């Protein structure tokens, strides 16, 4: 099975030269994206096929000479392979239509299939070297894609920061594998599993830094909202919804599979980071008025939710509560799947809006629902799903995470007893804020009146994009209605990691899902959906028969004030102003400063809002200035005279001779 998967990855890589050859011609786009669509769908089928099959391994003569490259397709990698390639297939389908507007095709087409292949290879790798090669190959190709529109200054800066953070992450992972492999270099995962690593804590912390920086945990997230919007939309969809999941896979594989028995305090670190990430992510998102940056920041929040699930699973596993650990891990992994669906959908929508209007800034959009009805509907389904509204899939994984939190009072350690409720509160707070954020995103972009002529001239996107978005929306609904199937698909992966699984969901009558026997609570997506449909049609038919159906159009009530200019509408900033006053003053030191013109003067009043990104100011700015200062001080050494260089050599000789004279 894994060999077939590898062949398909090789096929994806084979598309690269074709892309370079046919890049300029319009047919090139269709060939490349069509071929990657076929390859990724095949990979999805293989992944689904091997979800329940026993793990298959293969060793190729590549990679480290005496070791060879090991690849393995077990339940966990099968699930993530399916998630990666499902996102890839949707993005390829979408790109067939969206790619037509690409200004520099030769900078995007060759790297796109390579990026897909890189991600799939990371999930299949079974030894440290091939894992890191494919991991960094994934970052390299995505860096090239982020640099596709390098003429824009802050894209180049985003690409630069992204590559530095990615390399720092890889360095942390190299150190992790250094610890796991030990001095004699036992690099295959099988050897690592056998050898019991005594520095388990250091391994997990380094893995948290390495994988966390790629996933976007808060202190390490700064590159994500810069890099994701800079890439073309179908690539930023892939990066946000799929690449971050590969990072989650990296952490899960190391923390659960390779690092041996977890200590209880590991989960405290993961949970605190995850809690902060959820709230900070959504608060950042609320303050944005660039649609794609908003979605990128929101990815940070969802990564936090996933890591809450994983942190809880670590805590339960440390205390031997296998059933609860199975529940928490299933919640985390299900949210991986759900998030990859609706985040790709939302990014596709943002791409369609960008194509139609040429604008990313929500302040210049508005009223697109009249001009792009299908995109609006599908985008609405995406927004509802991400805000965890019941019939859709967002709610299911959040519900499971809440159930997992409810099981944690049985944890003996005091630290966890205090942290888990706090994390539960943060999760609830971020869910509510997410709903607010996506009311703003959908409302300001699609509803109301167009604020700029560009929004007025918008037109519906092509059918390929709509097909991709429709497919993902339908999948969101299906995952929301019958979550049992997807939870059972996760069972083999969860059993391999925590040794136990959730009760069989499809067996439960009426397709509802039951987290754990003793919690006796259950949720039935299908019934809730049917209930809403029935009551809705009941009300509609009652009104249709009893009430009058007369309807008249009239100008909206404007309180007698005659100026109908679109500027009177609420903009993204004004919509977020109440929440900014509640949370922003603490988190971003937001302060509003209004200058009123002197009485009688007709010049407009000015309201300026200043916010500071505390993470950047406290962590990255000093780091950058430190390196700059050191570089300046050392730079003088370049301009010494020959005599001074000679005295350097002389001093080195004398020191060494002194060492020899004194020491042995």
């Amino acid at each position, binding site marked *: 099975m894994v060999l077939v998967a590898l062949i398909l990855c090789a096929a994806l890589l084979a598309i690269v030269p074709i892309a370079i050859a046919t890049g300029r011609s319009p047919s090139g786009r269709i060939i490349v994206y069509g071929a990657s669509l076929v390859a990724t769908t095949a990979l999805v089928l293989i992944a689904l096929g091997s979800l329940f099959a026993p793990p298959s391994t293969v060793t190729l003569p590549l990679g480290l000479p005496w070791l060879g490259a090991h690849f393995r397709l077990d339940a966990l990698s099968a699930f993530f392979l399916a998630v990666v390639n499902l996102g890839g297939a949707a993005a390829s389908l979408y790109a067939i239509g969206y790619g037509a507007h690409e200004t520099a095709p030769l900078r995007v087409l060759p790297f796109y299939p390579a990026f897909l292949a890189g991600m799939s290879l990371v999930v299949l790798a079974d030894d440290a070297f091939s894992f890191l090669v494919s991991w960094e190959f994934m970052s390299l190709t995505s860096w090239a894609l982020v640099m596709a529109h390098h003429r824009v200054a802050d894209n180049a800066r985003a690409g630069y920061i992204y590559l530095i953070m990615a390399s720092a992450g890889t360095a942390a992972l190299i150190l992790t594998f250094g610890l796991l492999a030990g001095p004699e270099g036992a690099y295959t995962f099988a050897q690592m599993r056998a050898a019991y690593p005594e520095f388990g804590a250091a391994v997990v912390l380094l893995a948290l830094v390495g994988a966390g920086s790629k996933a976007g945990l808060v202190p390490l997230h700064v590159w994500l909202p810069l890099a994701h919007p800079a890439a073309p939309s179908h690539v930023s969809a892939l990066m946000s919804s799929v690449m971050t999941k590969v990072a989650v896979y990296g952490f899960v594989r190391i923390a659960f599979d390779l690092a041996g028995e977890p200590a209880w305090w590991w989960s405290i670190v993961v949970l605190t980071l995850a809690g902060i990430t959820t709230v900070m992510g959504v608060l950042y998102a609320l303050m944005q008025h660039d649609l794609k940056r908003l979605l990128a920041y929101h990815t940070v929040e969802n990564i936090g939710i996933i890591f809450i699930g994983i942190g809880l699973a670590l805590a339960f596993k440390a205390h031997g509560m296998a059933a609860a650990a199975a529940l928490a891990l299933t919640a985390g992994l299900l949210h991986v799947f759900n998030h990859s669906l609706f985040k790709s959908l939302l990014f596709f929508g943002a791409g369609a809006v960008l194509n139609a209007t040429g604008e990313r800034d929500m302040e210049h959009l508005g009223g697109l629902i009249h001009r792009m009805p299908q995109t609006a509907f599908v985008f609405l389904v995406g927004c509802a799903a991400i805000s965890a509204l019941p019939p859709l899939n967002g709610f299911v994984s959040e519900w499971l995470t809440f159930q997992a939190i409810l099981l944690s009072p049985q944890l003996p350690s005091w630290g966890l007893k205090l942290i888990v409720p706090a994390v539960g509160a943060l999760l609830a707070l971020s869910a509510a804020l997410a709903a607010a954020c996506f009311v703003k995103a959908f409302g300001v972009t699609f509803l109301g009146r167009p604020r700029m002529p560009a929004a007025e001239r918008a037109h519906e996107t092509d059918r390929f994009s709509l097909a991709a978005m429709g497919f993902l929306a339908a999948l969101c609904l299906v995952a929301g209605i019958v979550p049992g199937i997807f939870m059972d698909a996760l069972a083999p992966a969860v059993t391999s990691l925590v040794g136990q699984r959730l009760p069989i969901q499809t067996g439960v009558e009426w397709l509802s899902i039951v987290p754990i026997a003793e919690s006796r609570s259950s949720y039935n997506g299908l019934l809730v959906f049917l209930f809403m449909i029935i009551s809705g049609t009941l009300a509609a038919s009652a009104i249709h028969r009893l009430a009058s159906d007369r309807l008249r159009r009239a100008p909206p009530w404007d309180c007698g004030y005659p100026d109908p200019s679109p500027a009177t509408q609420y903009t993204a900033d004004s919509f977020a102003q109440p929440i900014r006053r509640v949370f922003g003053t603490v988190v971003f030191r937001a302060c509003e400063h209004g200058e009123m013109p002197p009485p009688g003067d007709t010049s407009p009043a000015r309201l300026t809002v200043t916010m500071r990104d505390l993470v950047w100011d406290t962590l990255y700015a000093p780091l950058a200035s430190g390196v700059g200062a050191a570089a300046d001080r050392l*730079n003088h050494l*370049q*301009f010494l*005279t*020959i*005599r001074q260089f*000679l*005295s350097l*050599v*002389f001093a080195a*000789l*004398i020191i060494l*001779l*002194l060492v*020899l*004279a004194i020491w042995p």
Partner: protein
Amino acid sequence: MRGLTFDIAHMLAGSLVLISFLQLYQDRLYALLNVFALHAFVLALSVAWQAYVQSAPHLYVTAAIALVFKAIIIPVALHRIIVRLGIHREIEKVVGVGTAMLIGMGLVALSMVVMLRVTTGADPLAREDLAFALSVVLLGLLMMVTRRNAVGQVVGFMSLENGLVLAATGAKGMPLVVEISVAFSILIAFIVIGIFLFRIRERFDTVDLQALDRFRGERR
């Protein structure tokens, strides 16, 4: 007899170190060249004496090369160059004479300590030779560091090479290959320096290294 030969070799090597100190002291170019000539002459004597002691004929060739090239041809050539360049004026050294001497003393002490501690096993003649050779090398280096003038640096480099020749002859049975190579390198070095000096002279009318330093790459 063994005592006498050892004493003479010891005396010659010691005098070589003394002359290196003298070179440090000189602050005019002419005097520096004369002292260097003396330095090379004493080296030739000690090599010849080593040749006699080790009864190794090839060392005589080295002594001859040292005498002819380093004692006679090079100082004369440098004299003519200085005359042509018209720079036989005062050399201002970077480090004062007193401190240079002090550092020189420290260096000799260091080389004594290092060499004697290390070569406990070898025979006394070789140990002495190596210790003196190392101190001559270090003094040569010190001279290069304290000189501002290109010619001064070259002379410092030459005295450093003399130290090497002293060490090489001290090691009994070192095949001739080494001598030729050292001589070979002096020859080439000298020619290159000459070309450079002319070119430097031609280019910007001075031999002072400071003038050269203004053209360091990537001025700040």
